[in-house]
């Protein structure tokens, strides 16, 4: 068949296009970093980059979980509250004198459990993810204030070590253990998405749930799994946050779900599902982190200008990303 050879030629030309959004994001990120270096003294310190990772490790982990959910075409609004709830639960259990290992296990179970329940509600009762996870968000935040109205400090030795241990080079540059954990999560997630059945089912369900069902794929199981994974990532994120702040506070991570969704979407994952990469999400988180670092380094903006400039930088970033994307289309 003569026609098919041509098809082949055309498809080959198309191949790298799938990576274009991610590449564009990477380039823009580097440009933004370059601007920072040229504008602000001390921006070029390696530690600045490390700090972006240290300060956004928990965000990254949560965003990875959200990537799974968004890839199936869903959304999880509960992540910020689950992060806070996990930190609160850990802090309050530690305060009551439970051993660190037990606390870790308990804290890491709550998030996935909630995620699992939400996934079940979404799948079995066919309720829209938005409303289910919004209820989950109220619930988790409610648990936070229910546990304690005020913040609870953590003095546990294990937590303190995890928090203050610096892993670094002789120049004094360092990262925290949380960063390593975040990287581990990223790699595990990327591997899961690329190389396991679950991962491929996630893309299929996001591409077309009805087709996936007719193809005999476990649509329900996949849906429930992604919300459970997101819950697990939120729980890990919560633990990292409690390492980060050594406390549990009822109002921490308010509105984090939006940051997370923004990071995932900036990273090139499409909100309707079916396309995107964990690596893109990493870039999305970094983009948000660098924007924030730029603003702190500037140090001349008042509160409202801070917001306006964040919005402006976000806009510039997304616009350029989009334009680069179109150019190569």
């Amino acid at each position, binding site marked *: 068949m003569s026609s098919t050879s041509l098809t082949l030629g055309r498809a080959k030309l198309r191949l790298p296009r799938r990576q274009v959004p991610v590449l564009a994001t990477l380039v823009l990120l580097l440009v933004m970093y370059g601007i920072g270096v040229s504008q602000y003294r001390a921006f070029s310190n390696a530690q600045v980059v490390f700090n972006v990772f240290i*300060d956004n490790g928990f965000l990254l982990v949560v965003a990875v979980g959200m990537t799974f959910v968004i890839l199936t075409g869903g959304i999880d609004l509960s992540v910020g509250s689950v992060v806070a709830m996990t930190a609160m639960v850990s802090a309050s259990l530690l305060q009551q004198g439970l051993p660190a290992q037990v606390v870790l296990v308990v804290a890491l179970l709550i998030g996935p459990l909630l995620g699992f329940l939400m996934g079940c509600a979404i799948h079995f009762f066919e309720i829209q993810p938005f409303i289910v996870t919004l209820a989950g968000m109220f619930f988790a935040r409610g648990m936070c*204030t229910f546990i304690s109205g*005020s913040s609870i400090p953590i003095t546990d030795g294990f937590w303190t070590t995890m928090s203050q241990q610096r892993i670094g080079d002789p120049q004094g540059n360092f990262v925290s253990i949380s960063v390593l954990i975040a990287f581990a999560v990223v790699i595990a997630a990327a591997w899961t998405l690329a190389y396991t059945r679950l991962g491929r089912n996630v893309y299929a369900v996001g591409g077309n749930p009805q087709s996936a069902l007719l193809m005999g794929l476990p649509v329900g199981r996949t849906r429930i799994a992604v919300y459970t994974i997101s819950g697990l990532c939120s729980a890990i994120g919560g633990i990292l946050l409690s390492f980060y*702040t050594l406390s549990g*506070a*009822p109002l921490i991570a308010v509105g984090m779900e939006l940051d997370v969704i923004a990071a995932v979407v900036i990273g090139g994952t499409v909100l309707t599902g079916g396309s995107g990469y964990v690596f893109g999400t990493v870039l999305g988180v970094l983009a948000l982190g660098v924007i924030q670092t730029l603003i702190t380094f500037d*140090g*001349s903006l*008042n509160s409202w200008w801070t917001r306006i400039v964040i919005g402006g930088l976000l806009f510039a970033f997304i616009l350029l990303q989009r334009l680069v994307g179109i150019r190569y289309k």
Partner: protein
Amino acid sequence: GNSDTGDAGNDGKIVLGFSQVGAESGWRTANTTSIKESAAAAGIELKFDDAQQKQENQIKAIRNFIQQKVDVIAFSPVVESGWDTVLKEAKDADIPVILTDRSVDSADKSLYKTFIGSDFVKEGRLAGEWLVEQKKGASGPVNIVELQGTTGSAPANDRKKGFAEATAANPNLKIIASQSGDFTRAGGKQVMEQFLKANPKIDVLFAHNDDMGLGALEAITAAGKVPGKDITIITIDAVKDGMQALADGKFNFIAECSPLLGPQLMDLAKKAHDGEQVAPRIETEETTFTQDQAKAALPNRKY
């Protein structure tokens, strides 16, 4: 100033990195303005960062200040706990830290130089004590409703605590309802509307800030009651609109929480930079206002 340590300060100026909570209220904005103005007046270069009410953002800001090698770091902690790690990094970088407005709960007091600011518990207590004094002679029960700040926030927790402690002195004083009005006028009004409908007899309103009190005023008026007379109103903060209401006789008492700690902060920043010894706790000069005092003070209120 000395140029030997200040690497970011190019012309020998002291560089102060300040991380503000946000701009969530008029009070906070006045606080920011005070700090900016007095920094300029004192010849200190200010690196200002707005954390948008998020602790994570404040920690990030402090890390970046350390990278920029500012001379002094100051910040108003969003919450009390969770600062040890980053404060340790600041200490390792030999940058003195000053807390404003609110303290942190670190066991290691060497992590910061000093804390300058108001004491929320004390404000609540002052409000409560005034009420106890007023209702000394009351024979029957006095019904109090409370408008709390944002649930889980430190001022709300502390003011509630201080007020409860003080009013415990008189068993006649009973808090019959307590809800969160989120520190906003709209919130205060909406909650007060329901309080008024659910409780036929309300004698006292205690609001955790002026704004909620101002919102509640409208609800009280709409219910056909006279604020300040039928219902005694006590609030905290003393922003301009609140003071006006107090002077007009609509409020009965305000415990001040002054945002104007800029000059004191600059003073401390200089001392800290020069390595001078400073007291570990410095209270801002604050007072309380009755209606008459408000009338007198109102003409020269700055915020």
